[in-house]
């Protein structure tokens, strides 16, 4: 055997004295006690910082002494330390993105950019007869239940709402404001904490149409400046329609929808029975199928960006409470679901609604 055998590796390697080892162990126990005690004290946001700080001191003690890093080659500290550095970068970048993004929203192609069958309007931010006319039409379908036929905020559903729907003939009390671009913002984002939902299911041109119509209901409003328009994604200087296409839904809603346990339930595909009300089926196909699927089994309403792509879908209609009785059903269908991407269908006649109800009952396998 050569000389290396007689020189124990230990000579080059620090052996932690037993006393130090026990001391470090005891400090760790004491620090654990401190963490638990402080956990019971209410320090607000500090609790978290203190807990992480103490944990880090403990981790450092373990690394430096138990894992001998203090006496080890410097490069090993660098290697191990680097992993925490990269972890910190990972966390900080993710957090700054998520917490300071301004509008925390998931973008996705939820609406068709062009009105069904219609042409894109060249400069929808400029009010025209045609746009106001289209707005009137949409308003009577989508908004009158709350805002009333003249936009006075006195629709049939208004009485039950807090805050009350806006009176469009008044000039005060507006949260976003009553310039067309400001109304567009309301329609893009809704008013959080109120029944006013985002109407991103409508194509952007239709939202502009509604905005112009709402303005026309009250006294003359200020015109949009180029800066105002820029805020809603229209660059007048470029002279073309640069409209933000991606409507957004709040991340809250996306999470709820993606994690809803009922989504696992699946209704079996059913062959249509001959007793189906033809009218209900027709309305269903025209108005509901694209979001609820041909059999009411639920369908993809939109996609969320990102990899892997997440899809947003509705649940089966058969498990909804709203189909248990006709009045609840009509209420949901006419008013839509605030903030849930379900548009109201206030333009349906009583007969159509009844037919629709029967059709949905059929689809859900109810008598």
């Amino acid at each position, binding site marked *: 055997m*050569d000389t*290396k*055998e007689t020189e*124990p*590796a*230990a000579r*080059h*390697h620090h*052996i*932690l004295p*037993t006393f130090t*080892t*026990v001391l*470090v*162990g005891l400090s*760790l*126990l004491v620090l*654990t006690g401190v*963490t*638990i005690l402080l*956990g019971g004290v209410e320090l607000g946001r500090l*609790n*978290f910082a203190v*807990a*992480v700080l*103490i*944990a880090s001191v*403990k*981790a450092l003690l*373990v*690394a430096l*002494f*138990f*894992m*001998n890093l203090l006496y*080890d*080659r410097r*490069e*090993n500290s660098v*290697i*191990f330390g*680097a*992993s*925490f550095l*990269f*972890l910190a970068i*990972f*966390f900080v970048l*993710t*957090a700054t993105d*998520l*917490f300071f993004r301004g509008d925390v929203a998931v973008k996705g192609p939820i609406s068709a950019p062009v009105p069904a069958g219609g042409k894109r309007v060249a400069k929808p931010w400029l009010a025209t007869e045609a746009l106001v006319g289209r707005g009137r039409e949409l308003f009577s379908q989508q908004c009158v239940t709350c805002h009333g036929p003249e936009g006075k905020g006195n629709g049939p559903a208004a009485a039950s709402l807090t805050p009350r729907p806006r009176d469009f003939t008044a000039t005060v009390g507006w949260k976003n404001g009553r310039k067309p671009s400001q109304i567009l913002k309301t329609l893009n984002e809704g008013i959080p904490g109120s029944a006013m939902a985002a109407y991103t299911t409508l194509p952007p041109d239709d939202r502009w149409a509604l905005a112009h119509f709402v303005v026309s209901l009250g006294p003359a409003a200020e015109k949009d400046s180029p800066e105002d328009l820029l805020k809603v994604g229209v660059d007048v200087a470029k002279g073309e329609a640069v409209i933000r296409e991606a409507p957004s839904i709040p*991340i809250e809603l996306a*999470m*709820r929808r993606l*994690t809803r*346990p009922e989504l*696992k339930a699946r209704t079996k595909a059913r062959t249509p029975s001959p007793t189906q009300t033809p009218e209900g089926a027709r309305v269903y196909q025209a108005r509901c199928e694209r979001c609820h699927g041909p059999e009411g089994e639920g369908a993809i309403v939109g996609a969320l960006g990102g990899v892997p792509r997440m899809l947003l879908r509705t649940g089966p209609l058969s498990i909804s409470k709203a189909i248990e009785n006709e009045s609840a059903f009509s209420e949901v269908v006419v008013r839509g679901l605030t903030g849930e991407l379900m548009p109201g269908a206030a333009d349906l006649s009583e007969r159509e609604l009844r037919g629709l109800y029967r059709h949905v009952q059929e689809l859900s396998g109810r008598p």
Partner: protein
Amino acid sequence: MMSADVSDRAVTAAASHEHESPFAGPDEAFEAAKQGMWIFLVTEVLMFGGLFVAYGIFRGLHADMFQEAHRYLAVSLGGTNTVVLILSSLTMALGVGATQRGQRDRALLFFGLTLLLASCFLLVKYFEYSHKFHEGLLPGGYFRNEHLKHPKAPLFFSLYFVMTGLHLVHVLVGMGLIAWLLKRTVARQFGPHYYTPVELVGFYWHFVDMVWIYLFPLLYLVG
């Protein structure tokens, strides 16, 4: 040091065949193995790190939910396990020291104690998990608890189970490694001349302890 029973046969297989070894000597082999272990631990930090980042993000988004949900974890059990793991880290460190000094009997005692403490950890974890199962405090879509009403609460338990579950897997692996150390120590394969596996398993075990040092306050205390 009073080296009670220095095992003279403790000669490394790798380092004794020097013509086959890429290393200049046992010291260099030891240093290389150790550095390899550090690099492995870096990957471990990053694996757990991903989960800790997820925890941080969701805690930021749903602070109220974490506040509410963390009360459903038993601080007494989590605290017991923290103490148990720290003691096991201590016995591990003492076992490594004993091996380095050639005190085989002490090393055996400390490795045995470490294994015992690890089993305690498992036992407590078993009670904790079965309690959670019983109460329906389960991850994601399996959540069935009726008292915890917060709609996001299942998310907390997803994080809880994934994080403590991955940690538990590490505890199990660590226990296997310590058992292996025990067996080789009994066979007198380690001593002041050669203790690379002992030191490295020690690293692994201390790392497992380190992860728990963070998990405990974050999940049980501040939620």
